[in-house]
């Protein structure tokens, strides 16, 4: 029996896509990368089907490329690197299995989007920690597995957060459940015993969930995940702190994080703030710190009130001024934006249509150095400053920050597109040399990123051999070339 027939036997003929036009869309995305057209797209609906697909791939030796989110793709992770690949499309696995108000946790399948889960958790008086305005079709599980930063650093204790537990089909086809969901007991028995699968550690002395996170589908496939939620504020206020110089915001941000006062806390340049709000960037200050404070169940106005007073006092010590309206952008409008997934068109594309995102981790006190270099590089490549959106997101209570440069251009214009490609590579390599840490490698910088850490590459290849010894899981991605 051929692969197609085998796949049909597993998922049914309606769930095996052979349409060449659709298959062709997986050959490339907005990452500038081109790979191979997949042979089939297969849409499983259950754990059992996913496991049988992985077993079949091991038996017949074809590569699997997972894909969960809808809409346009930006990072190249779902582009097959080798011929004969089968894309495993999780968009049919859309169950929100459970939302647990008391333990503030949800269990979802990989096809569930931010828009869908956010609506479900709000009904329970909870809120979902999200990346900055994710595209509405973005899969929650994919975002968790990509280790995307969320916008409230106070709730971000560890790099794995807000991901809790995972049900996995490893590259070998074995089932594995991570964290306290692993047992003892079935999920039903655990629920009856008032457990809720919220602890990501283990089981025992290994964190396979942590290993899978960031692996871009090269080690296994997730069939559900649990996600940590927070209490939905009863009231919220959003403030904007303008600055001409990024440095003027940094120490104030550190201080606020030390006091654990703000919920959302992020820094945007005027280009990104414009892209998000639709307000012309020319009327906005070069830099804006955006933060929210909230009232919860008990005495919400009192909470807001003392936080406002504390922050105003702090701000005066740093010569900055929090305001609720700024150049046509209101805090109220921003609250609405920050608490929901983005809308189409995706905000990063709203100014020019095309965007290439250069992102890495650093610490807040070094962020200005990267901005300076980016501006120098942009000048040297004749790339307009007003096409560079900058976003700085403190993570893990401020022990580090995600730094992102959105290089915006019209990609229908070959010259503009090439300029972005060259600037992306040039600035990316400069950032690597400056100590920018590319924890989530993508695109043309992958080789340069891994050349910085040969010991890590060696260890990663050992890990690949353990969890995917036949190399069927998204081959060619990360540092897993053909020689693995």
């Amino acid at each position: 029996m051929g692969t197609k027939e085998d796949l049909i036997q597993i998922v049914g003929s309606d769930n095996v896509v052979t349409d060449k036009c659709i298959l062709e869309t997986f050959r490339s995305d907005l990452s500038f990368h081109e790979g191979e057209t997949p042979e089939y797209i297969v849409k499983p609906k259950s754990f059992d089907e996913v496991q049988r697909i992985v077993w079949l791939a091991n038996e017949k030796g074809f590569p699997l490329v997972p894909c969960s989110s809808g809409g346009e793709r930006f990072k190249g992770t779902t582009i097959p690197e080798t011929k004969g690949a089968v894309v495993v499309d999780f968009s049919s696995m859309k169950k929100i299995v459970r939302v647990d108000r008391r333990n503030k946790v949800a269990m979802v399948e990989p096809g569930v989007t931010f828009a869908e889960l956010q609506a479900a958790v709000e009904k329970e008086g909870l809120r979902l920690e999200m990346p900055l305005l994710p595209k509405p079709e973005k899969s929650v599980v994919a975002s968790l597995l990509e280790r995307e930063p969320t916008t409230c650093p106070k709730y971000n204790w560890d790099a794995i957060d807000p991901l809790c537990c995972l049900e996995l089909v490893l590259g070998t086809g074995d089932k594995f459940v991570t964290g306290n969901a692993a047992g003892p007991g079935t999920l039903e028995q655990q629920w009856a015993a008032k457990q809720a699968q919220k602890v990501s550690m283990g089981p025992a002395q290994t964190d396979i969930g942590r290993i899978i996170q960031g692996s871009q589908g090269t080690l296994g496939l997730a069939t559900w995940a649990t996600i940590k939620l927070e209490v939905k504020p009863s009231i919220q206020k959003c403030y904007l702190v303008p600055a001409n110089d990024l440095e003027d915001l940094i120490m104030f941000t550190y201080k606020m994080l030390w006091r654990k006062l703000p919920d959302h806390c992020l820094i945007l340049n005027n280009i990104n703030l414009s892209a998000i709000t639709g307000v012309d960037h020319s009327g906005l200050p070069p830099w804006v710190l955006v933060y929210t404070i909230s009232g919860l169940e008990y005495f919400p106005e009192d909470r807001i009130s003392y936080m406002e007073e504390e922050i105003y006092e702090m701000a005066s010590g740093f010569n900055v001024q929090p305001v609720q309206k700024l150049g046509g952008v209101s805090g109220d409008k921003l609250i609405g934006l920050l608490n929901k997934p983005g809308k189409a068109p995706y905000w990063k594309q709203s100014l020019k249509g095309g965007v290439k995102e250069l992102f890495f981790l650093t610490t807040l006190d070094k962020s200005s150095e990267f901005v300076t270099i980016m501006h120098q590089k942009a000048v040297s490549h004749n790339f307009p400053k007003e096409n560079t959106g900058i976003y700085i997101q403190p993570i893990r209570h401020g022990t580090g920050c995600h730094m992102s440069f959105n290089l915006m251009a019209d990609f229908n214009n070959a010259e503009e597109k090439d300029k972005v490609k060259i600037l992306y590579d040039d600035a990316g390599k400069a950032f690597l040399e400056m100590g920018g840490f590319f924890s989530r490698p993508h695109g043309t910088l992958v080789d340069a990123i891994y050349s910085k850490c040969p010991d890590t590459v060696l260890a990663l290849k050992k890990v690949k051999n353990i969890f995917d010894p036949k190399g069927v899981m998204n081959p060619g991605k990360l540092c897993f070339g053909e020689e693995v």
Partner: protein
Amino acid sequence: MKLLSKDMYKELEDAVGKEFVSQEPVVLDGYAWQPIFNLTNQKWTPRPAAVVLPETTEEVQKIVKICNKHKVKFKPHSTGWAAWGSPSEEGELQIDLRRMGKIIELDEKNKYAIVEPYVCCAQLMAEAMKKGLTCHVIGAGPNTSALASATSAWGYGGTGLSTGYSGRNLLGVEWVQPSGDILRLGSPGSDSSWFSGEGPGPGLRGLMRGFAGTQGSLGVFTKIGIKLFPYYGPKEPKVDGVLLDVQVDVPETEKMFFVVAPNFQKYADITYKVGDAEIANWFTRSTLAAGPELFMPRAAKKIYKSKPIRSLLQTFQHQGVILLSSVSKREVAYQEKVLRQIAKDTGCVVVDLSQTAGYGFWWWLMGVRSIPTALTFRAGGDFLTSYGSPVEYDNAIKQAEVATQYKQKYIDKGSFFDDTSDIGWGGIYEGTANWGHVEMAAMFVRSDGKASERMEYLEESAESTVKQTLGLGLSNLPPGSWKIYGPMLNNYHLWQARIKKALDPNRVGDEEWYVPPIDELEP
């Protein structure tokens, strides 16, 4: 007594200097004296063949390579606080990391420190407090190694609501693997600073640490970046006296309360509400009956025999201690207002400890330092702990209920000190009651001839965690436990055994607390 070969001993001397290697029996006996958490119930562990004291990562690497060359197992320890830091069999090399005791960097703005293995939590905390920061300290006390708690061992800290959990506070890691290869996890592996432990790509921290660490089976951790947390108390507190006689001036913005609930359910309710309200710095269950046992053990033996006093103590069984902390009076006033309202709504009572005479003692010992180990042994000279899996707090409270019943059986047999059968402690973690734990301590006199009964208790309590779905916790950690729990939990032991095989090809890392390599389990 097994000794190293002369060649190997000479190579070790060449690696670290003659004065930092020893095979003197009297020195080695010092390492083998390990009654604490000695699961054989003996006072001794197998005597190492030699001990070596490296000063640098490069020296550690040389030592591990020498072990590989001569096929000799090694066992590293940092502060060497308990028996799991000792070799599991004779003939092994003990690597004592006490010469690696530097706080290399304390980054005030980014709230992390880079530390070596012998930096104990008390040292790190003292330096961090000067900068308005503190660290997580496990319940074993401030004498424990910050690095070992985060990389290799396990343990919960009472302040976890504001300081997290040791294994989740790791950032960059420097790791001499059992093969002798050095691996720097996360950002330091890419010549960046130590602020991140994951990537590029997969999070390899997951190899070396889950809920617990591997107790040295996967090599030696020589340096870590570790998260620090805001501390709002005095930067250099004036502390007079020692242990029970401590006097400290506490600022008004540090307020501590007893929280008393009428039953387990109400106690869980108030705990969840406190987490949802995001108000406290820490909140830990602490029964009133624990007091006599810890602070006046001789008197406690009489106190516990008095029926009226027993019933009085048991009235306060569902009690916790909560700390509200800030630099701001306004913030603490708000938090106190919320706490009192929550108590009212849940039918609980709060007692303001900060108005009492002994408050400085409570604040310093319980609130800042985590309880000193010396206190937990006073009742009988030794103790064990059980249950305590990391779970949602409702399930943790269920563990307290179950544990109380099991422990009572062994109190009745005379295996444990009669403390009204609770003394379960544990709280909520990570700011919002994200998760929690409750473990059950039991005190005993080691020389009472009841060792086998205590082993029975440990086995029975472990079985109950399976029967009643209470997670895998401290009862389920002993060497070889993978044989029971591995097959129940997706064969996790086989994946660990594959990791062991890949990272330790010559099987030189003492594997007692981990697993053997895969070719032994699946020949």
